[in-house]
Structures are given as structure tokens and as C-alpha cells.
């Protein structure tokens, strides 16, 4: 049997995670759907804010749901998570960098691109 105080503490921990997640979700939803900040924030700023809200929720759920915080040493889970995060950043940021760089080098609309390609193939 595990002592009641431990149980109460984990129920409280899960509840805090749940409530924080709901607040963060509703906040992000309100910002987009109800245009709370549309008048004085640019779309770029809103995208940044949404990314930050998602990241906070990621950390909240990692701590309160997946208990990444109270791991004993050596913290293999945390280490493998950080490693995966580095790989993720390389894959995602790298792909986006390459693809958008290609896009901007081409600098043309779909119609212009089709004309350009037709010219290249001699059609």
C-alpha cells in the first residue's frame, strides 16, 4: 500500500497539469478565433505567441503528466529527450531553411514557374 499523502500529491499534480493545459489551450484558441489581439499584433507576433503557448503546454505536460522532473539520477529520460529535441530541431529547422530558401531563390508564382519550366524544356 502506498501512503495516502503520496496519492493525494499525485492527484493534485495531475489536476494542476490538466487545469494549466486547459487554460493554455483556451487562451491560444481565443487569440486566434476571437481575434483578441488582432488590432495591435501582427500575424507574425501571433504565430510567435502561439508557438510559445504550445511550448509551455509541452513543458507542463512533460512535468505533470510524464513526470520528467522527478526522475532519479542518472536522468536517462531527460537526456534522451534533449537528444531527440536536438535531432528534431535539425530536421525541422533544416528542412524549412532549405525549402524556403529554394522558394525564395525561384521568386516566382506558379504561373511564372510553369512558363519557366516550359521554356526550359523547349515547349
Amino acid at each position: 500500500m502506498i501512503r495516502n499523502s503520496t496519492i493525494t500529491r499525485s492527484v493534485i499534480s495531475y489536476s494542476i497539469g490538466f487545469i494549466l493545459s486547459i487554460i493554455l489551450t483556451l487562451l491560444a484558441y481565443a487569440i486566434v478565433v476571437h481575434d483578441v489581439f488582432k488590432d495591435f499584433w501582427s500575424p507574425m507576433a501571433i504565430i510567435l505567441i502561439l508557438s510559445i503557448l504550445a511550448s509551455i503546454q509541452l513543458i507542463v505536460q512533460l512535468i505533470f503528466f510524464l513526470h520528467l522532473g522527478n526522475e532519479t539520477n542518472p536522468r536517462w529520460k531527460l537526456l534522451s529527450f534533449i537528444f531527440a529535441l536536438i535531432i528534431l530541431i535539425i530536421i525541422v529547422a533544416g528542412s524549412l531553411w532549405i525549402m524556403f530558401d529554394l522558394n525564395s531563390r525561384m521568386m516566382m508564382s506558379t504561373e511564372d514557374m510553369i512558363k519557366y519550366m516550359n521554356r526550359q524544356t523547349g515547349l
Partner: protein
Amino acid sequence: MTTTRLDTAATQKHASDDKSQLGFWIYLMTDCILFGSLFATYIVLHNNTFGGPSGNDIFEMPAVLVETLLLLTSSFTCGLAMIAMRQRSKKFSLFWLGFTFLLGLAFLIMELTEFNLLISEGYSWQRSGFLSAFFTLVGTHGLHITIGLLWLLVMGWKLFKHGLTAPTVRRFNLFSMFWHFLDIIWIFIFTFVYLMGVL
């Protein structure tokens, strides 16, 4: 004397549980990388609508919010089931797991309804690069949810038949990690696909 021996046994069991949890955790990290590449694909392709609809035209925001809350709540009830399991209460474990299953199923049904509606309107994955990437990303998450529900069903049956045996509890701990992980992936789908799609 007895306490010491029990403690040693408990520590050994704990260590082997830790090992299987770490192994499963590493699987989840590789799954993260799979989703990461699908997210990158989606972000690259999300403007390539080829004259078809964009995210703004097809996303039903209130429904997506409901889906998000369903999955979030099922993640929470899954945590409560794990707590009930640590309390050795079969009844409450089954109750919360049943709750988790129903919420997950409701989420899956809503998602499939959304897919079905899009396809019947002619906006399937064949329509444009954007829709291909959208269906691949959201569909892969939905497939994970389906597998999770099947897992939950099989393990729930084992729990119902044989009670809280050590292997069952260990597998449920892995399941709860899987389920929380899927909720985290959904937060990013919700933010980067749906919210930014209707911006």
C-alpha cells in the same frame, strides 16, 4: 528482516520497470522524430493548395477545440487510472480506463467524421499538396490513437480477467506514457495546423 528482503525485491522490480519504461521512452522519442518530419513536410506544403481549399476554408474550429479538450481530458483520466492502480484499486482503475477509452473513441470518431466530410466534398489527399500533407500528419496521429485504443481494450480485458498483476500494471504504465505522448503531439497539430491554418 522481512522488510529488508521485501525492500530488495521491490527495488529489483522497480529497476526492471524503470528499464522497460526507458526503452519505451526511447521509442517515443523516435516517434517524435517521425512526427517532426511530417510537421516539416506540412509546413513546407501548407501553401500549395493548387487552386483547392486552404486551411481557412475547411477547418471547423469549434469541433477541433472539442477534439482537443476530449483528448486532453482522456490524458488526465488515464493519469487518474494510473493513480488508482498504484492504490491497488481494480474497480477505480477500470472505471478511469473506461472513461479514457470512451473519450479517445469520441475523439477518433470526430476526426473520422471530419475526414469523411472533407473527402465527400472532394477535398481528399489527392486534391493538393496541402491536403496530402494534412491527411498524412493528422492521419498518422489518428492511427496512433487507434492503436492506443486497441491496446487499451486488450489490456483492459486482461485487467478485468486477471486483476492487477505485475505485468499488467507495468504495461499500463507504458500505455499511459504513450497516451500522454499522443496528447502532446496533438497540441502541436492543434497549434501549427489548425490555429495557424485559420489565422
